């Protein structure tokens, strides 16, 4: 007895769902995750991968079946059936994708809001050196001190680092310790806030392991705040075409535990600032 088509279709559907779920959960295409929200982004990606694999496999299977099963046999000059439409079917394949897509939208909005992407920047200004504050007094919307966008948890207590991009390097300034380096060091497990400025053209600050990227735009400071949660060295990559050496515009971020980080800060802090309060205390 031949197996009824509906049973075959059902079995194929179940198989398809299982395969795509398995692929989404078990095939890892991302680099290691080293920031708090990276895992959430990866979870979103897994959902997208599952849906995508299911859809692609399903459509490919239909295409292949059509090509094999409905190919024109030699000598057959008849037409196929004159089917011009099928309203319930059309409503189905409009409604289901629409619902899936809206659900995806809500899901990723939720993730993005938790990352700090929906933060309100109207009252948030970067911390300019005092002279600049003087100059911009009475003009709170001075474009150089307004934050134009980015990702910000607005927690206010994050450890600040000023990042300056220029052709073709990133430079990092630690405002509280007042020193500048070419290598970014970040404390493990502690929220940080990068304040990004560019001196010339648009660059983009990207650390794949953090799953974070932010354009660095001349005249429009942006912020990026996050918490690194895995010790190690990672590449900082410029992602926006910025000139002939764009491909070589890279730097390093070192995530280290708070002890080594404090030591590193002290090692790099200029003697005048670092030792003055210290010596007065011991004296």
């Amino acid at each position, binding site marked *: 007895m031949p197996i009824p088509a509906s049973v075959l279709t059902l079995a194929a559907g179940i198989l398809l769902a299982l395969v795509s779920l398995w692929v989404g959960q078990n095939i890892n295409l991302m680099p290691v995750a080293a920031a708090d929200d990276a895992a959430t982004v990866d979870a979103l990606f897994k959902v997208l991968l599952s849906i995508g694999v299911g859809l*692609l496999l399903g459509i*490919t299977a239909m295409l292949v079946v059509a090509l094999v099963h409905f190919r024109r046999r030699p000598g057959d000059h008849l037409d*196929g059936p004159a089917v011009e439409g099928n309203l319930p079917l059309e409503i189905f394949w*409009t409604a289901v994708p629409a619902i899936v897509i809206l659900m995806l*939208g809500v899901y990723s909005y939720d993730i993005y809001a938790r990352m700090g*992407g929906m933060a309100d920047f109207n009252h948030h200004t970067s911390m300019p050196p005092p002279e600049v504050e003087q100059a911009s007094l009475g003009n709170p919307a001075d474009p150089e001190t307004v934050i134009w966008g980015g990702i910000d948890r607005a927690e206010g207590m994050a450890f600040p680092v000023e990042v300056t991009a220029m052709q073709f390097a990133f430079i990092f300034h630690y405002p509280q310790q007042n020193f500048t380096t070419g290598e970014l060091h970040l404390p493990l497990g502690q929220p940080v806030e990068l304040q990004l400025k560019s001196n010339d*053209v648009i660059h983009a600050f990207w650390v794949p392991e953090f799953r974070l990227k932010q354009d660095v735009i001349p*005249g*429009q400071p942006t912020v990026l705040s996050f918490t690194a949660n895995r010790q190690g060295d990672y590449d900082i990559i410029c992602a926006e075409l910025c000139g002939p050496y764009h*491909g070589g515009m890279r730097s390093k971020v070192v995530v280290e535990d708070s002890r080594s980080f404090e030591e590193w800060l002290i090692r790099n802090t200029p003697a005048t600032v670092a030792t003055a309060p210290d010596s007065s205390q011991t004296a």
Partner: protein
Amino acid sequence: MDVQHHTPWHEYFGFSLDHKVIGIQYLVTGFFFYLVGGTLAGMIRVELVTPLSDFMARDTYNQVLTLHGTIMIFLWIVPVVNGAFGNYLVPFYVGARDMAFPRLNAVAFWMLPPAGFLLLSSYFIGGAAQSGWTAYPPLSITTPAVGQMIWIMSVLLLGGSSIFGAVNFIATILKLRRPGLGLFQLPMFCWAMLGTSVLVVLATPVLAGALILLSMDIVAGTGFFNPALGGNAVVYQHLFWFYSHPAVYIMVLPAFGLVSEILPIHARKPLFGYRSMIYSILGIVFLGLIVWAHHMFTSGTPPWMRLFFTIATAIIAVPTGIKFFNWLATLWQGKLALNSALLFCCGFIFNFVFGGITGVALAQVPFDVHVHDTYFVVAHFHYIVFGGTVFVIFAAIYHWFPKMSGRLLNEHLGRLHCLLSFLGFNICFFPQHWLGLNGMPRRVAEYDPQFQLINQISSVGALLLAISTLPFLINVVWSAWKGAPAGDNPWRACTTEWLTSSPPPVENWLREAPLVTEPYDYGSVEDAMPVTTVRGRELWSAGR
């Protein structure tokens, strides 16, 4: 066949007013630039075989990259899907003897070769533009001015040509329809061209405005987009993408239309869901105009904008999806002729669905923040533009070459071309998704050594793609000269371009224009034939 009515060969090199000649002029010119752009792509892939920047100088690499993108978009895809097939087919479909404004049509075409050669010339006089096809300031203001200015002038010319063409299509479709032919009786390609032309007319002037302001920043020292002079660099991005997102639909909607013409004929079934196809075109046109900032999720755009553009972008996948389900339903239970035209269409469906899926993923901001400006995006849009639109262009050439030339193309070479293209394309671009996810940014001449193997695989795919054009070129040249005569209607089609000789006479039909009110009248239900309808199939079997 009436010999007097044949087009003399020299007409193809002159200021012809015949829409069929102009269409073929667009096609051949576009294909020439495809070969140029393809050569540039080959140079990019050779540079990326090794992690070091060792094949060409770094600034040359950026020039090659910029020329490649600009040529492929503005001199190959847009002119061919709109100019070539639009001009060739739309007058047939509306039952007209030519376009509404034949002279404007010829002017629009003749803007193309000068613009193309102007663009190429910049490489030899001081170097081509180096800021990518997107030309973001301040980079485009600070790189050498001559190349960037020539780039702007060339793109302005091409945009102008595109607007002239669009005005002509709108007028032809709305005003030149044969009496008795209603809008909802038109072949789907006309609707696609109508929607596309509306996008061109609404969006292209915005690009022109942005480029004129940019050129003033470059030559006159104004500060519209130059932060050093108080300008705003991000505003340029808004203006640019206000055109350039619709531009992706300007490239793909006509291709959708072509697929809707080709599939029913080779599947011997009516186009499934005619009305819903039209509504989804209209939906895409509307939504296509309000999604542009999804290219700017990391540009410091305000949060509400990211929310709005995420939702709008994701929703556009719904009307797009409808079209694919309709095509699958058209194939289902058909009598599929597995010829080159149909196989290229199936390749298109696979590739485009793939690119659409990565597109929906890219619309999710948290994910896009990671992969924006990486090879993942490069892979996405090549799946759409190359795997999608270019595959359709080839399907269309296999389908309409017999009409244009009167001779059939060789099917063995055609299927070989299809197979090599499909393999080469997927080997070239599939691995690039992984590169982007794992940390390789786009537009770089050097990269981390861990990515070398995958880049080499991708370059092998590119080599295969280059090889795949050989059977095609041989086929076209050989068949145009020696191919088997096609006859008037080799595919037993219903639409009006097939109800005349191959190639058609100057006036398209020697008699009155046929009235086809059911362009997809295939299928084996024997219903009473309306008196006014000319059935292509029966005309064909009656030997016309």
